[in-house]
């Protein structure tokens, strides 16, 4: 512990010598200074990095002369009076004296940046109001994003302003100066430098940043014995090892779904999960779009363990236990004709495998087999082999060099680290991000990461929150949010984005680059300079222009990694491990909301209903009805199903009791549990929510556990907060004693209209069979003219008629629109208790309907928001005219006029109105005031609110067009939900404009209005969902053969 008591290692002799040499007019400040050692220079350097004392200001080192002494004294006295004891925040209350270029006050500006998750970047455009970021949009120029975003990007702006974020450097929990840290840390590094870094270990998450790569290279040169470990629970280890197995080297795989006609997913949730999901969803849907005269769809086969949004979009879905996916993959491979693989599956799986293989073979070079990230190496290797056999590699499956800067088997990497820590070889452990104390698996003998970590002499951790790991470290360095700091990262195809900050760090956050810089003795160098230096070297001549271009576009041009030809290893099949299929299995999956737990303190993400289950604020164990029955855990008769029974999951001696969720379509004898809950130091929002699945996750079974698993009934019940009660669209399979509507009760409402491609081709209107829609002439009142209006001077002017078309065929239920809407419209969250009571405030929800038998139902998503009915039932009943129609067809809500009788909500057949039963917004926390969109009113208690079709955006677009004396162009105004949607499922526009996309979509034969029979005449309409089943697998059962909606009247 020599680095702590540094005063003891003075040698007294140089000091005495120095005193002797000095004249008595000279002053000295400390013995260190007096002795004038290098050590002292280093100390100063570190302690006052910003001053960069030795280079810029000789005053700091030189003997204090008369003049400078007076200067110093004067300044000290003046400052002593100015600052009492704490640093006051800088407040600028004067208007701009000089307006920054391009800024118009009150008008937002957009800057390109990128957010990483699992190390891989998604390009973003961030809306900034007077210097504070408020809303995230996708960057249309970015290869992954293409203008879309996921829920994490949308919610990251709330994370930026999270009042629970770590604000300063901490030493054993006490606030310290950054300089103080640098000083102590520097001493420890100096010790290590002597040993070549033999005791230094650096642990990072998955990273793709070229700057980090450059810094780490430099660091490892300086500390040649040091080791760099990588760990992140979002393990792509299977994918890495699979590639290694198949090709003999690590590769990065880019899937071209826009070139694939047949897709087989082996437990891969490629539409919403993993890097590149946004692009994959967009490309996949491009091949399914039945608009603009297209009559063709790709076909998706999914064999999956956990019902995901990808499974919901499947044309054929086979519930398969995660451990048995391997067997299925082998069977498909064998049937496709991959050499060296044999497989036998029986029953439905055999039929499935046979049909899939046939279909794949018929689409060689135009198909994709994709394996789930949590699947073991063998499944990935088999998928690669099938793709190779089909000629897909190079066509639909593009291989490149790895984008990760340190592609390693992460479980092996952290296991090695733990081994070394146990062996006492690690003296300094620097953890750059991550939260291994919380999310590392259990190691040999049930040892936790914390146990091993405690044996390290100096532990340094940088992260956004003072979390489970930070509290167990000597030093915690507050990390700067990606919206506060410079960095860079690669997209899935290798394209680099510069991560550009939108705001000065709110607190004393430092970026990873700055910390690494400090380790490289570049303490004075800002993150900006570090990142620029990396790219100055790379971009060479014309750097400034290229840099500006890169910042503006959000991508560094030409950085996509080139495709690489890699041949399948000849003996690849020899390395396949046999699948271990036990009686029961536990599958650990990333949570759709909080990911691996890092977003646990983000209330927007906590309150977004998880796809399909519609549960908020918790994790749970998902099982099939049969398994629940066998374990005595079938849900009680309670219709709400909120009181869940507990299941006891045992894995390798550890046990955990979790509420059980019975999900139709889940395979039997399999339990899926989401990671990321049960946190103790997430913050005020995330602490104590849910159950810690990491506590039963071991290195041997980090993703799928079979061998040591046993399941049993737990004790007691637990209340889950679901936003939707669970009914089937036809309930034929649900075996619940509680009353459930019978098939026709709901089917006759024609809420969700679905069809099969073959029928659709024969009769495009068949999806509407049996539905009614009253004609417009069926009224004694004249219909309002939404086409034109008369001005006061008698001119006829054309009007806008705002409308929306939602393609249910394209909607993947990813929830991005919900969070985007929340962010754009300042929608409050209400918390678990009130979700249970039914007080959610989301203006937009994704209704989920099941159809078919319980073992394997079809799932349909229907985004539902205010339909802006022309005959709005809400408007008639409001006693104070607080909800009124405008001439452009918007159903407007006047918050100031609203008294709160709630009659409008009662009378709304779509139940999209949300009432502020209490004051739900946080009006007091200062940092949260910044996250709100200044263009949208914050609603107080007692008023009704609902979707406005983003009226603030409509107004901004209209003002802009009027300034230029033209009509609003199609696509110029995008609602928040529309702009976030990766699959273009939501299209908004002027339906009076016959050329607009929305108008054209409304002419599609699949177009229908929900509850049209009520004659509400909604402005939002839906396009029926389509399946493209394989006839061999019993698809295309004949229903709804004839004609469309009946127009009565």
């Amino acid at each position: 512990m020599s680095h702590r008591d540094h005063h003891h290692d003075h040698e007294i002799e140089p000091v005495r010598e120095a005193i002797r040499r000095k004249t008595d007019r000279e002053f000295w400040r400390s013995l260190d200074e007096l002795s004038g050692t290098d050590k002292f220079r280093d100390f100063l350097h570190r302690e006052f990095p910003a001053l960069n004392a030795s280079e810029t200001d000789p005053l700091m080192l030189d003997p204090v002369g008369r003049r400078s002494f007076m200067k110093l004294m004067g300044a000290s006295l003046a400052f002593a009076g100015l600052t009492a004891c704490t640093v006051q925040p800088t407040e600028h209350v004067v208007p701009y004296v000089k307006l920054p270029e391009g800024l118009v006050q009150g008008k937002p500006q957009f800057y390109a940046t990128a957010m990483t998750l699992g190390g891989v970047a998604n390009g973003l455009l961030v809306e900034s109001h007077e210097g504070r970021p408020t809303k995230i949009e996708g960057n249309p120029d970015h290869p992954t994003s293409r203008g879309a975003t996921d829920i994490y990007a949308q919610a990251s702006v709330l994370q930026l302003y999270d009042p629970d974020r770590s604000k300063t450097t901490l030493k054993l929990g006490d606030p310290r100066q950054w300089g103080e840290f640098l000083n102590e840390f520097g001493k420890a590094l100096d010790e290590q430098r002597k040993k070549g870094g033999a005791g230094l270990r650096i642990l990072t998450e998955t990273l793709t940043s070229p700057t980090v790569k450059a810094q780490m290279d430099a660091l490892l040169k300086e500390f040649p014995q040091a080791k760099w470990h990588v760990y992140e629970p979002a393990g792509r280890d299977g994918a890495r090892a699979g590639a290694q197995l198949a090709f003999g080297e690590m590769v990065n795989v880019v899937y071209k779904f826009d070139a694939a006609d047949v897709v087989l997913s082996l437990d891969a949730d490629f539409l919403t999960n993993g890097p590149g999901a946004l692009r994959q969803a967009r490309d996949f849907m491009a091949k399914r779009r039945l608009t603009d005269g297209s009559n063709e769809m790709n076909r998706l086969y999914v064999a999956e363990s956990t019902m995901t949004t990808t499974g919901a979009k499947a044309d054929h879905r086979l519930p398969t236990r995660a451990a048995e996916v391997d067997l299925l993959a082998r069977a498909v491979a064998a049937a496709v004709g991959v050499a060296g693989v044999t497989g036998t599956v029986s029953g439905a799986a055999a039929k499935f495998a046979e049909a899939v293989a046939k279909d794949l073979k018929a689409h060689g070079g135009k198909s994709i087999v994709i394996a789930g990230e949590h699947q073991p190496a063998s499944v990935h290797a088999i998928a690669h082999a099938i793709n190779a056999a089909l000629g897909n590699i190079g066509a639909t499956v593009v291989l490149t060099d790895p984008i990760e800067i340190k592609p390693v088997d992460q479980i092996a990497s952290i296991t090695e680290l733990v081994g070394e820590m146990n062996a006492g070889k690690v003296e300094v452990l620097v953890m750059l991000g991550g939260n291994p104390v919380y999310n590392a698996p259990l190691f040999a003998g049930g040892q936790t990461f914390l146990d091993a970590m405690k044996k390290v002499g100096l532990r340094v951790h940088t992260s956004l929150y003072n979390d489970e790991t930070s509290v167990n470290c000597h030093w915690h360095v507050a990390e700067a949010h990606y919206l506060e700091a410079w960095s860079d990262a690669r997209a899935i195809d290798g394209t680099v984005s510069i991560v550009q900050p939108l705001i000065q760090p709110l607190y004393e956050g430092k970026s990873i680059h700055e910390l690494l810089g400090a380790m490289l003795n570049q303490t004075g160098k800002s993150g900006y300079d570090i990142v620029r230096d990396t790219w100055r070297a790379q971009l060479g001549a014309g750097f400034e222009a290229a840099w500006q271009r890169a910042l503006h576009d959000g991508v560094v041009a030409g950085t996509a990694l080139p495709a690489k030809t890699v041949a399948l290893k000849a003996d690849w099949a020899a390395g396949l491990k046999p699948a271990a299929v036990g009686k029961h299995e536990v599958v650990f999956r990333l949570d759709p909301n909080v990911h691996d737990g890092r977003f646990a303190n983000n209330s927007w993400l906590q309150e977004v209903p998880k796809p399909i289950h519609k549960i908020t604020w918790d994790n749970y164990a998902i099982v099939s009805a049969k398994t629940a029955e066998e374990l005595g855990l079938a849900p009680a008769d309670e219709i709400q199903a909120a009181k869940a029974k507990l299941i006891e999951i045992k894995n390798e001696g550890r046990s955990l009791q979790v509420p059980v969720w019975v999900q139709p379509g889940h395979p039997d004898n399999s339990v899926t549990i989401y990671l990321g809950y049960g946190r103790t130091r997430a913050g005020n929002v995330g602490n104590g929510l849910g159950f810690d699945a990491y506590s039963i996750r071991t290195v041997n079974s980090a993703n799928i556990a079979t061998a040591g698993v046993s399941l049993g009934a737990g004790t007691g019940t637990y209340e889950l907060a679901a936003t939707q009660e669970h009914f089937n669209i036809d309930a034929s399979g649900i075996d619940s004693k509680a009353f459930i509507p019978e098939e026709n009760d709901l089917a006759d409402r024609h809420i969700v209209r679905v069809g099969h491609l073959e029928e659709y081709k024969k009769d495009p209107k068949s999806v509407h069979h049996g539905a009614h829609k009253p004609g417009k002439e069926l009224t004694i009142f004249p219909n309002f003219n939404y086409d034109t209006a008369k001005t006061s001077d008698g001119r006829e002017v054309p009007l806008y008629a705002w409308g929306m078309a939602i393609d249910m065929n394209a909607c993947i239920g990813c929830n991005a629109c919900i969070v985007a809407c929340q962010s754009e419209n300042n929608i409050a969250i209400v918390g678990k208790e009130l979700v249970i009571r039914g007080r959610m405030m989301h203006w937009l929800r994704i209704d989920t309907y099941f159809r078919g038998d319980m073992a394997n139902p079809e799932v349909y998503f229907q985004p539902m928001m205010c339909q802006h009915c022309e005959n709005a039932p809400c408007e008639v009943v409001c006693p104070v005219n607080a909800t009124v129609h405008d001439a452009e067809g918007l159903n407007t809500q006047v918050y100031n006029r609203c008294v709160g009788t709630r009659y409008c909500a009662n009378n709304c057949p779509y139940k999209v109105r949300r009432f502020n039963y209490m004051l739900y917004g946080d009006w007091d926390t200062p940092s949260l005031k910044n996250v709100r969109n200044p263009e949208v009113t914050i609603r107080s208690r007692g008023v009704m609110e609902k979707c406005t079709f983003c009226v603030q955006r409509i107004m901004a677009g209209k003002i802009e067009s009027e300034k230029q004396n033209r009509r609003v162009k199609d696509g110029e105004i995008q609602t928040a939900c529309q702009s976030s949607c990766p699959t273009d499922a939501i299209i908004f526009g002027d339906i009076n404009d016959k050329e607009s996309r929305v108008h054209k979509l409304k002419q599609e034969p699949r177009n229908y209005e929900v509850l049209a029979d009520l004659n509400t005449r909604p402005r939002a309409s839906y396009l029926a969902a389509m399946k493209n089943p394989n006839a061999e697998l019993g698809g295309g059962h004949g229903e709804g053969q004839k004609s469309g909606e009946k127009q009565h009247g």
Partner: protein
Amino acid sequence: MAEVIKKQEYVDPRPPVVGPGHTLKSINDKIADLILMKGFKKGWIFGLAISFLGMMMLLNTIAYLVLKGVGIWGNNAPVGWAFDIINFVWWIGIGHAGTLISAILLLLRQSWRTSINRFAEAMTLFAVACAGLFPALHTGRPWVDFWLFPIPNTMGMWPNFRSPLMWDVFAVSTYATVSALFWFMGLIPDLASMRDRAKHKWQKVIFGMLSMGWRGDARHWHRYETAYLLLAGLSTPLVLSVHTIVSFDFSIGIVPGWHATIFPPYFVAGAVYAGFAMVLTLAIPVRKFYNVEDFITMRHIRNMCKVMLATGLIVCYGYAMEAFMGWYSGSTYEMFMMKNRMFGPYGYMYWLLILCNFIVPQILWWKKMRDNLAVIFIVCMFINVGMWLERFVIIVMSLNRDFLASSWRMYYPTIFDFSMFFGTIGLFMTLMFLFIRFVPMIASFEMKTLLPEAKVDEHKVAEIEKSIKPESLPPSAPVPQFGD
């Protein structure tokens, strides 16, 4: 003379509307004594204390409600109205008996109404006060409730005259005003009587002020009778209109289970049904504890039972029609609504309703049962509960599962829903206790008109006048006067 005697021998088989042996004076004494007596009965103090506690619970709940918002109740996203509007309709319905008794029965010259009308009117007034609390406080921002009134303002903002809630505001406020006027008008002669009998100064002052200078002058009586009749005429349509408009709150909506044309008559009948049940619930104990069984006789009770039987059957016809129309409409929403009512998660509420409002009251077909106060009291309690359930069935069970299955959700009340509801019962009972102690609860001057000596047969008078010679009259025969 023989003819006269013969007519006197005619015996009405029904119990009398006034007990035997009463004179003009005895009626006055008995009613006035209840108010002017010294001290308070123990039972009264106890009852008032309990009711007062209930009222305090109400006030506390209201304070918390205004402080925190209606979120303290259990209302949620599909179920925007629950206990608040159930209780509103329940109380408004209860009020209807008073108006019916005092207005319609007056116009129909049903003399038996006399002993119960004051009591029932007071009940109306208090019930309307309780009812009024709910719509006023169920809004998100009660402090701007006045926006529901058409108040001219600089912004030219008017209420939405298409909204049934708007009509409701007029209906209920008119109803409250007319009921209060009617009640107070009817009280004036009795208040004057109290003033004249009062012994304490404060009693004299208060009753003096309240009686508004009533002296029993013939002109007073003339104007009083005219005004009373006019008010009765005004009130009569209110009996029908108020609950019709309350029913519009639902039937104008498009929610299955609300959107039904049968609602107005069905609601009015239900209101009268509930009102009479409540009158009986209160009258049965009161007549016992205050020994006014000779004023509120079995005749009254039997008649009220018959009204309940009749209106109850209308209400049940309404239930049957709802079910029939649900099926006959062919609408999937309506059919499901009925199915959900009967067999849905709240199905037991529906069957309880049928038990309370349909099955149990049929016992009143038996004459014997109509004479059994205990049975009647129990039946009335069933009806009170049943009518509350009816509104629960209509409001909550229609809202909780309407059009889009995705938004279906159960409703569960919170403790504040109950404290508000039972609190209004506390308020109602407090007012009732104060009323029976401090205000003549039976219209004594009207009671006196029921006495034989008040009956004047004009033909007989003419005959007698003809037959009697003027000199045979005593020189100064006292002319009987009301008010003696």
